[in-house]
């Protein structure tokens, strides 16, 4: 099916030029990186840009760097790049665990993690996983550069705080200073590629601190702040897990759609939270299932 809609294609060689183009064309322009989201939207008639600005010609956006405890992932870094990166495997096994359950290899070879954050769909796996690290999105625009905490990034389905003329150039993730273990649990309809029906991410830090997020059960990936507060400073026990699970209905707002009912999502998030907490705490202690093991 050919795209009926015509547009202009521009591939600027510098970030400055790209920002200028996006500012000039405003909402009539769309930024293209891997295209696995945007081209589908244009094909389906759900996006109709007059100008497509391909940022793949901008140098330096394809890097994964780890310096002084800070991980930087450029806007052109694909899920496959992350999956094959020794730095990610060694320092951020949680991110690697997530990349194994994102779409399929043929999509991961093209789709970028920053693009996933920009698509801002409620089931965006990167959003849920990066929330527990307090990651930040790096933005370049007409007024210069700014850094947006991920907790402020998502406004709703397919809506972010990105303004006219701005490009998300990367994401930064601080490696927790304490010893930690983590877990990403993704519920899908079948083994293989699928969008999340629900996801739970748990980061357990030494000293009984916990960071928790949910995906696909609210208009955007969300941090479970009430549950984090409840768990704060306490060693994990069966009773504590029961208390945490009781708070799940207050944290999430699942809907019924083509992939699952809201009742099923609510039930499964409770199950996945328990398993995720146990696995993350076990991994913190150097035990537990290997990263990449499906817990569901």
């Amino acid at each position, binding site marked *: 099916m050919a795209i009926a809609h*015509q547009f202009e294609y521009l591939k600027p060689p510098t970030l400055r030029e790209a920002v200028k183009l996006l500012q000039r064309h405003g909402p009539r322009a769309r930024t293209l990186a891997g295209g696995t989201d945007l*081209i589908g939207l244009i094909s389906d008639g759900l996006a109709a840009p007059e100008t497509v600005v391909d940022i793949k010609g901008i140098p330096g956006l394809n890097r994964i760097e780890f310096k002084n405890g800070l991980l930087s992932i450029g806007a052109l870094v694909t899920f496959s790049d992350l999956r094959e990166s020794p730095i990610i495997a060694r320092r951020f096994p949680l991110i690697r665990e997530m990349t194994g359950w994102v779409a399929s*290899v043929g*999509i991961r070879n093209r789709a970028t993690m920053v693009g996933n954050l920009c698509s801002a769909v409620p089931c965006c796996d990167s959003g849920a996983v990066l929330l527990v690290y307090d990651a930040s999105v790096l933005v370049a625009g007409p007024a210069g550069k700014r850094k947006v905490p991920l907790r402020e990034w998502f406004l709703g389905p397919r809506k972010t705080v990105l303004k006219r003329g701005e490009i998300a150039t990367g994401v930064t993730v601080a490696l927790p200073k304490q010893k930690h273990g983590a877990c990403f649990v993704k519920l899908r309809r079948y083994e293989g590629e699928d969008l999340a029906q629900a996801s739970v991410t748990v980061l357990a830090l030494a000293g009984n601190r916990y960071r928790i997020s949910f995906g696909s059960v609210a208009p955007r990936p969300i941090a479970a702040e009430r549950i984090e507060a409840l768990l704060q400073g306490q060693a994990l026990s069966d009773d504590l897990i029961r208390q945490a699970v009781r708070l799940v209905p207050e944290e999430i707002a699942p809907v019924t759609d083509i992939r699952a009912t809201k009742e099923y999502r609510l039930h499964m998030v409770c199950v996945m939270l328990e398993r995720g907490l146990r696995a993350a705490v076990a991994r913190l202690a150097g035990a537990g299932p290997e990263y990449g093991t499906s817990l569901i």
Partner: protein
Amino acid sequence: MNQRINFKLNGETRSVEVEPSDILLDVLRDKLGVKSPKIGCERGDCGACTVLLDGKSVRTCLILAIEMQGCEITTVEGLSRAGLTPLQQAFLKHDSFQCGFCAPGIVLSATELLGKNPHPTEAEVKEAIAGNLCRCTGYQPIIEAVLAVSSEPGRQA
């Protein structure tokens, strides 16, 4: 709005005029006569339109042809120019396909896997072809063929 782009297709430099909105899959099939990438779901889910782009499997239904300037594409036509590869022969031997619609995509996905990882586990084979849907075989003879060719003694990556 037409623009001329140049890229390598199966080892040969090709030059073609495209509209910015032309999808790579359509250009390969209709303008360049390469028919092994198939039109399936057209939304990146089925893998029938897979090609290798600079050595990596991608979905040509989600790529604009105009993005290909200076890139290198390999399809099954290029892969088997000097005869069937050992992987393709293994697929034949194991009767891996029935209708064959998914075959080009699976051949390329498995070729990419074996290039990076000459001796994959069954789980790694399943992960590599998870994005290639086959409605005939239940996948078992496909997986068996990939595992068989990867365990042949003296096999080169």
